[in-house]
């Protein structure tokens, strides 16, 4: 998926929430899908709002709390994977291509992601894709199908009486363009991931010695690279409902610590475990892209390099700026306290937002 497609997921999920308290409203469901065609297969990643997924498959919500926990998803996964393989009907030259559910993942913003692959018997110049879940979802459901065609990305708005579209293998399926796109997306992810940026600021705010800073940044980077890999490969995927509030708490903590610590020589010992927590967040972002399994390693490397490049870029701007600001007496006296306070407030706000919301 390219960056505009990824951004779109956020917009779609924001739209799902609309202006209405979700638990009370009779919302019209809106799901989003990314569709990539290869010479002999279709890969699709579809994101539903969790309450919409529950409407279609009430058996997921075992405790009836109108949400899906990781445990509930794990319990239902086997049966759901079979049921959801028929979420799409893909045909090549009028012959059905068998489908397989490759992954079911809880995503940020109360989403449930479904990764599907349809392997056709032979290569085809075009496919017919039908979204086959409308009769299970709330009346009026809309599905935005982001389709990487041969020329540009297009979006098809599918609904019950217009459930299908045609798709031709596109340039986006080439590995080279995917690597560039994922590298760019990695940079974009860190630059638009305000929580990570605020954490990074908190981490280096009181550092005055380049050696200590290198240790801290390296420990954080190493930490998040490890869990990023584990999460992206699907080996360890903690519930975002736990990880996201934890990330917020690390931010608040680092802000608080800045009031009491003047020397960051030992902060690497904190930066490493905190990096482990943040890495799960990055891994979740990559999973949401629905990268096919056989392209996952190259995608992981490209995305990760992008994240590290973005982080380096931020530090190259941030550190000289902090050194320069410290020349001013007012900043030297109040700067750290004021910024750290704001970091604490931001961290706590995100924490409560993520726990309550």
């Amino acid at each position, binding site marked *: 998926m390219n960056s505009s497609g990824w951004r779109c997921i956020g917009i779609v999920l924001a739209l799902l929430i*609309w202006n209405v308290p979700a638990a009370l409203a009779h919302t019209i469901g809106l799901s989003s899908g990314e569709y990539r065609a290869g010479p002999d297969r279709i890969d699709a990643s579809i994101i539903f709002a969790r309450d919409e997924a529950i409407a279609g498959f009430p058996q997921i919500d075992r405790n009836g709390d109108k949400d899906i926990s990781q445990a509930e998803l794990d319990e239902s996964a086997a049966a759901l994977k079979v049921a959801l393989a028929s979420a799409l009907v893909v045909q090549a030259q009028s012959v059905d291509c068998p489908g397989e559910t490759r992954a079911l993942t809880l995503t940020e913003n109360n989403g449930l992601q479904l990764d599907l692959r349809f392997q056709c018997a032979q290569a085809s110049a075009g496919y017919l894709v039908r979204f086959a879940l409308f009769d299970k979802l709330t*009346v009026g459901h809309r599905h935005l199908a982001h389709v990487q065609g041969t020329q540009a990305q297009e979006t098809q*708005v599918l609904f*019950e*009486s*217009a459930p299908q579209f045609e798709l031709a293998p596109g340039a986006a399926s080439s590995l080279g363009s995917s690597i560039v796109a994922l590298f760019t997306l990695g940079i974009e992810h860190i630059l638009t991931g305000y929580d990570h940026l605020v954490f990074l600021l908190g981490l280096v705010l009181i550092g005055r010695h380049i050696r200590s800073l290198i240790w801290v940044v390296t420990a954080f980077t190493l930490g998040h690279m490890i869990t990023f890999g584990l999460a992206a490969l699907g080996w360890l995927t903690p519930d975002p409902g736990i990880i996201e509030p934890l990330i917020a708490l690390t931010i608040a903590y680092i802000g608080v610590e800045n009031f009491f610590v003047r020397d960051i020589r030992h902060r690497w010992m904190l930066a490493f475990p905190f990096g482990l927590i943040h890495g799960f967040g990055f891994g979740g972002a990559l999973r949401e892209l629905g990268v096919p399994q056989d392209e996952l390693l190259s995608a992981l490397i490209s995305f990760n390099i992008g994240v590290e490049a973005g982080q380096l870029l931020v530090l190259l701007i941030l550190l000289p700026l902090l050194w320069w600001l410290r020349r001013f007496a007012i900043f030297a006296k109040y700067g750290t306290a004021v910024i750290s306070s704001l970091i604490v407030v931001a961290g706590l706000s995100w924490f409560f937002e993520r726990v309550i919301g």
Partner: protein
Amino acid sequence: MIFAASCQPASEPAKPTLVSATNTAEILCLAPISGAAPDEPIARPHVDSTSANAWINRGRAWVLHARLSADPGFYLNVGACADQALSLEANHASALELKALVMMNMHDFAGARDLAASLVKSHPESASAFGLLADAQLELGEYDAALSNTQTQLNLRPNMAGHARASYLRWLVGDAAGARRLIVLALQDRNMADAEATAWTFVEAGNIYWNMGDLAAADAVYAEALKWVADYPAALAARGKIALAQGDHAQAIEWLSQSLKIRPLVDTAWWLGDALTAQAKTSEAAGAYAQAEAIGRRGDDLMLANFLASQKRDLDQALRLVDDDLKTRSSIYVHDARSWILYRMGRFDEALASSDAAMRLSTPDPKLIFHAGAIRLALGQREAGMRLLHQAVSLNPSFQANAVAEAKTLMSADAAPGLAAE
């Protein structure tokens, strides 16, 4: 229901709308309005993206399409157009009206009321804003305020929409004669350019006669609706009900099936099940009832709850659905549904409290009155209960086959408390 969406079928399956990706609101707003002429090439329409009014006009076209197609999903397109307009002019009154309309259709009645209330403050000359406010208040059970705002709407612009809304309100508060007089005024204002709205008003008029038990008059008015919009599903379903009441089961099945195909609603499938049962087509009737439940499970919680109560099953779930619905609105029909579920559960004291809330306007709706009578009878209030049951059946002796049969059983037998609930 004043706000009932109405529809016109797309004769062929529509093509998906294909647009270049920009942002979701723009994609949804600019998606081609397809379906009426499916063979036409689908093209991205031209909208002056710098003009709020252009986005609003596009949004209004989607409103019409939503009503004609009976697909509430098109209100997403309406909301998207409103958002595009509001991104240009944050306080644009017409865009905010569209937003309020979308909120109504998403059952965010309190949000719609608040938005409409702020609109009438800033634009006291806007009749449509007063209409929106009244509609939201109707759903929220704020009937006095709804009456007052409908009156203001009529003072500002005495048109079909205002008169129809006023007629419905008069009927709700027990003034059937006033309702009839106002619906006639509404039809005198009918707009040749808006056939769907006129057809809807005819159906509303027919409903008044139906509730009064004047089946011939109701049928004639429903038939008139079909002259404005052929295959108008609300009118087809209504004529189906009348055919069933008159014993013409085959005709009832035909009209109800036709309506259901165009606009799948719980009550239409339910009536179809009743009609099929009356013709002893048991397995087909079971299919229709299963369809009613399936439709309800796709988002119509209130009707699903009513249906489950009628079937005397899944009552805990039905109560949960209604209680959830009560968090968003407090109309007499939600209270009535709750009262009937509680009655079925044997919780007669609680049922009475809900029934009192449902009957607080003295609405001459035979179903509400029947429920109130049965509940009182179950509580040992024999005189009041019998009086209400007689009133329900005499208002419309065929308001719903099963309910009428149940009422007659209660009236004829010296029923022990709670007999019908077992």
